[in-house]
């Protein structure tokens, strides 16, 4: 499962540490690396980026996270050409924040009063807001089938 996540056009690139992490996320077993002081980070890591501790352990991510900020992207990069418009968000999951695409929401009804021209078959009529509770999984980009971190709103 290391075929398409490199993001650098090198389709055969293996990103040891990252690939295992996103595999685990896809299986519902996502984790963060945590140092004795409680700083969270994402792999691959040799030391905690906050304090330099080399004592890092894997800690399961909480089932629910909370969106801290988001955007509706209308002008995508080539890898997301067929996905636009889409919502990208940063969500807090325990000791770390994750960046992912929000699915199961309507990207053109985001509460900003904007209207877009896109259509998203996956959309329901919910707006994303800061504070929205989400679960995390791994989905595919519509454009090229590449794996992407996906957030889905959950009932609070």
């Amino acid at each position: 499962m290391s075929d398409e996540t490199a993001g650098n056009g090198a389709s055969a690139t293996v990103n040891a540490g990252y690939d295992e992490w996103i595999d685990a996320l896809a299986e519902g077993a996502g984790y963060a690396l945590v140092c004795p002081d409680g700083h969270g980070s994402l792999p691959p890591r040799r030391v905690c980026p906050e304090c330099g501790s080399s004592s890092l352990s894997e800690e399961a991510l909480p089932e629910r996270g909370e969106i801290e900020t988001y955007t509706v992207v209308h002008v995508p990069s080539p890898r997301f050409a067929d996905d636009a418009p889409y919502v990208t968000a940063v969500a807090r999951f325990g000791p770390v924040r994750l960046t992912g695409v929000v699915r199961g929401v309507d990207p053109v009804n985001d509460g900003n009063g904007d209207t877009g021209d896109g259509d998203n078959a996956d959309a329901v009529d919910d707006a994303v807001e800061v504070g929205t509770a989400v679960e995390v999984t791994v989905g595919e980009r519509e454009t090229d089938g590449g794996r992407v971190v996906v957030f889905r709103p959950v009932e609070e």
Partner: protein
Amino acid sequence: MTGVRVAGVGLTQFGSQPERTGRDLFAEAADRAFTDAGVDRDAVEELNYGNFMGALAEHQGHQAPLMAEAAGVRCPATRYESACASAGVAVREAVRTVAAGDADVVLAGGMERMTNLDTEGATEGLAIAADDLFEVGAGVTFPGAYALMANAYFEAHGGGREELAHVASKNHENALPNEYAQFRKAVSVEEALAAPPVAEPLHLYDACPITDGASALVFVSEEYAADNDLDAPVAVTGTGQGTDRMALADRADLASTPAADDAAAAAYDDAGIGPDDVDLAEVHDCFTIAEVLAIESLGFAEPGEGIAAARDGHTTADGDLPVNLSGGLKAKGHPVGATGGSQIAEVTRLLRGDHPNSDHVADAEVGVAHNAGGTVASAVVHVLEVAE
């Protein structure tokens, strides 16, 4: 330690000129800098050259020797890369080299060629300034990253698109007389608000354009300027740099730019001044929200108050502290690897009195340049002062 003077500045036209090679752009900027400085090419002891995405745009790595040739100098030449702060770090190392007494004359600046790529290619090129695995792979574009910061800022402090539209309108107004600017076109607040979305809440006029261009500066020691009777009235008196976590999601705060706080503190300390001493600033407004975050990091506004500065007239051409009198990245243009040098050139021209907008700051003695890389994982701040 010796004083560092700006002996000469050189810019190309900023804009869409896709047929021009990078080497031609930098050669023109360097030529203008040498003419402005009245310094012989033979005197140059080092070239510090900034470039970000030349490997993608021109399939050209190892650009420093190429640019030394283009500028007609034969000396140690090094390319610096810190995304959109590439020229800022190149300038900083030039200033430190001269200040340390290691060289009397250093040529610094940068170049970016971008419009030969299509919009998708340029978007992809700019995105490599973000964390490829954790951000770009999750759909974050360069405007998208700043949009995430804008929404976080609105959530923390309030404000919205209208305040940002005032930043855009101000900077377009400032660019009108600037002969180097890409857009010499007024944009009203209403027009900015009505423009199509790029990455909400940022719309077309919240974003800088894609630009080809180059900048070059001749820095000399105070002694060299005196010995050679150079007309170099502006000194670089402070330099500072800061670094933050690469990915936005890993930052302590999504609604501020701590790397720029650190760079500003170091530069002010180096110069022995504070924010109240500053008369004008060129800041890294790649997006309108970036100007808001910049003026807060520079200490011109309290956290949460920067959003209203343009709307309330504090940072307009005739305000208490004019920001981006050049038009900024927003309207003057943003050839990313050249921008940090271009800001130094514009602050120098404004302080010397030979900028088309100098009349707005006739008594100015202290200017600041703020250059940021990525989503401000890198930041460089310089203080320039009229020394004579």
